[in-house]
C-alpha cells in the first residue's frame, strides 16, 4: 500500500545554490523518499515519501528528521522539525475568511458612520489637526495607507518568524516606517508652509501610482496566504545589484525600504493629506507648517501602529497561519478596492462604491 505523505523540514547549513542540489539528491537517494525539493530562501526541504515503519506504524516527525539528518550530516547539514504545511493550510481559511469579511463590514460601517462630522468648521488648532488625523486613519484612507502598511508589515513579520528572529529585532521595519512617515510629514509640512504651495501629482501620475500600489498590495496579500508559492517570486525587494553586496543587504532591506515607504505615504492619493496640505500652505511658516503636518501624522499614528504591530502577540510561526491568512485576505480586499477606485477616478468605469 502506497502511503505518500509530504512534510517540510528546516535545514540548518543551507547557504548556497549548490546546497539545494546536494540536499535534494542525497534525500532522493533514500529508498522511501519519492521526491525532495529544497528551498534556499526558506532554508527548508519538502520531502514526499512513504514514512511507514516495517511494522506498519507511521514514523514520527522527530524520527524522520533524525533519519534525514543522518544522510545529510556528512555534508554539513542537519534537519529539524518545522510546521506541517500539508495538513494545516486549508483549515486556516475557515477562520481567516470570516475574519476578513468581518473587517470589510467594519470598514464599510466605519465609513457610513460619518466620523468626519466631528470636525467643526471653526478655527483650526493643532488639537483639531490631531483629531483630523485620527478621523483620517479610520476613513477610506485606511484602505490606501493602512492597507499598504499591513501588507508590508505582515510580510516582514512573517519572514521574521520563519527566521526565528528575536522579538526586540522583529519590528525594526515597522518602526522605521513610522519614523520615516512622521519625520517626513514634519519636514515636508514645513516646506509647504514656506513655499506656499502643495505637492500634488498630476491626474496621470496619481493614476499610475495608485495602480502600482494596488498591484503591489495584491501580490503581497497573495504572498501572505502562503498558498500560491509562485507569487513569492514576484515579491518586490531591493534590486539585485544592491542585493549582491552580501550580508549587509538585509540591513538595507529592513531599514531603508520601510523608511522610504513611510516617506512615500505623504504623496499617496488620500483626500485628507491633500486637504491638510491646502491648510498647511496658508500657515506661511516652516515651523507652523511642520508642526501642523506633524500633528496630523501623530493623529494617524495610533491606528497605523495598531495595524503594523498587530502580529506582535504571535510568538512562533506555527500558529501564525490564521493571522497571516486573515491579513492576506484583508490586504487583497483593500487592494481590489483601491484598484477599482483608481479606474473610477480616471473615468474608465462609473463609480462603484457609494459611501
Amino acid at each position, binding site marked *: 500500500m502506497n502511503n505518500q505523505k509530504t512534510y517540510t523540514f528546516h535545514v540548518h547549513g543551507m547557504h548556497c545554490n549548490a546546497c539545494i542540489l546536494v540536499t535534494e539528491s542525497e534525500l532522493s537517494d533514500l529508498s522511501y523518499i519519492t521526491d525532495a525539493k529544497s528551498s534556499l530562501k526558506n532554508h527548508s526541504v519538502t520531502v514526499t515519501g512513504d514514512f511507514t515503519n516495517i511494522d506498519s506504524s507511521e514514523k514520527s516527525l522527530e524520527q524522520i528528521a533524525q533519519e534525514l539528518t543522518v544522510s545529510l550530516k556528512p555534508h554539513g547539514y542537519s534537519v529539524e522539525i518545522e510546521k506541517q504545511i500539508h495538513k494545516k493550510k486549508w483549515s486556516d481559511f475557515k477562520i481567516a475568511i470570516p475574519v476578513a469579511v468581518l473587517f470589510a463590514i467594519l470598514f464599510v460601517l466605519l465609513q*457610513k*458612520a460619518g466620523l468626519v462630522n466631528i*470636525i467643526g468648521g471653526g478655527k483650526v488648532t493643532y488639537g483639531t489637526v490631531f483629531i483630523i488625523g485620527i478621523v483620517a486613519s479610520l476613513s477610506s484612507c485606511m484602505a490606501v495607507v493602512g492597507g499598504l502598511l499591513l501588507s508590508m508589515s505582515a510580510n516582514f513579520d512573517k519572514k521574521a518568524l520563519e527566521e526565528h528572529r528575536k522579538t526586540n529585532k522583529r519590528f525594526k521595519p515597522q518602526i522605521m516606517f513610522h519614523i520615516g512617515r512622521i519625520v517626513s510629514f514634519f519636514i515636508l509640512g514645513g516646506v509647504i508652509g514656506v513655499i506656499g504651495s502643495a505637492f500634488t501629482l498630476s491626474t496621470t501620475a496619481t493614476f499610475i501610482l495608485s495602480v502600482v500600489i494596488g498591484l503591489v498590495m495584491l501580490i503581497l496579500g497573495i504572498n501572505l496566504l502562503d498558498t500560491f508559492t509562485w507569487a513569492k517570486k514576484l515579491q518586490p525587494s531591493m534590486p539585485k545589484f544592491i542585493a549582491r553586496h552580501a550580508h549587509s543587504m538585509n540591513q538595507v532591506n529592513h531599514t531603508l525600504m520601510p523608511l522610504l515607504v513611510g516617506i512615500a505615504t505623504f504623496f499617496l492619493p488620500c*483626500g485628507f493629506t*491633500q486637504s491638510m496640505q491646502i491648510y498647511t500652505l496658508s500657515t506661511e511658516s516652516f515651523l507652523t507648517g511642520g508642526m501642523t503636518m506633524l500633528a496630523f501624522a501623530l493623529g494617524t499614528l495610533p491606528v497605523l501602529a495598531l495595524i503594523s504591530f498587530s502580529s506582535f502577540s504571535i510568538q512562533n510561526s506555527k500558529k501564525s497561519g490564521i493571522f497571516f491568512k486573515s491579513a492576506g485576505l484583508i490586504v487583497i480586499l483593500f487592494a481590489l478596492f483601491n484598484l477599482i477606485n483608481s479606474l473610477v477616478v480616471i473615468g474608465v468605469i462609473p463609480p462603484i*462604491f*457609494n*459611501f
Partner: protein
Amino acid sequence: MKSVVIAIIIAIILIFGAMFFKKNENSIDQENINNVSIVNDQQIITINAKGGYIPKVSSAKAGMPTLLRFNTKGTFDCSASVRIPSMNISQVLPNSGVTDINLGNQPIGVLQGTCGMGMYPFEINFQ
C-alpha cells in the same frame, strides 16, 4: 482573550450601526432640497461637500451656462478633492469656503463626479 475580542467587535458593530441609522435620518431630507438656482441667465448648482456630497443627485437644465458651487465647512476628507473625469476636472477645495467650478453649457445627460479617491459619488442630471 478571544471572547473579549468578540465582545469588543460586537460592541463596535452596534455602536456604528446606531450611528449609521442616525445619519440616514438626516440625509433623506436633504435629497429633496432644490439646490439649483438661476441668477442673471446663469445656472448655479450648489453642493455641500463634507463626508460626501449632498445632494448626491441634482437636476438641472441642459444648454445654458452652468456654475457648480461647492460649499465646504471644516472639510478635510476626500470630498474636498473633486473629480469630474469626463471634463478632466480635478480640484482640491479649501477647508472652509465657497468654490465655483465653471461647467459651461452642458448637453442633455448625466454628469458624473466623485471625490478624489472615487468613493463619494455625485451626479447631475441635465435635462
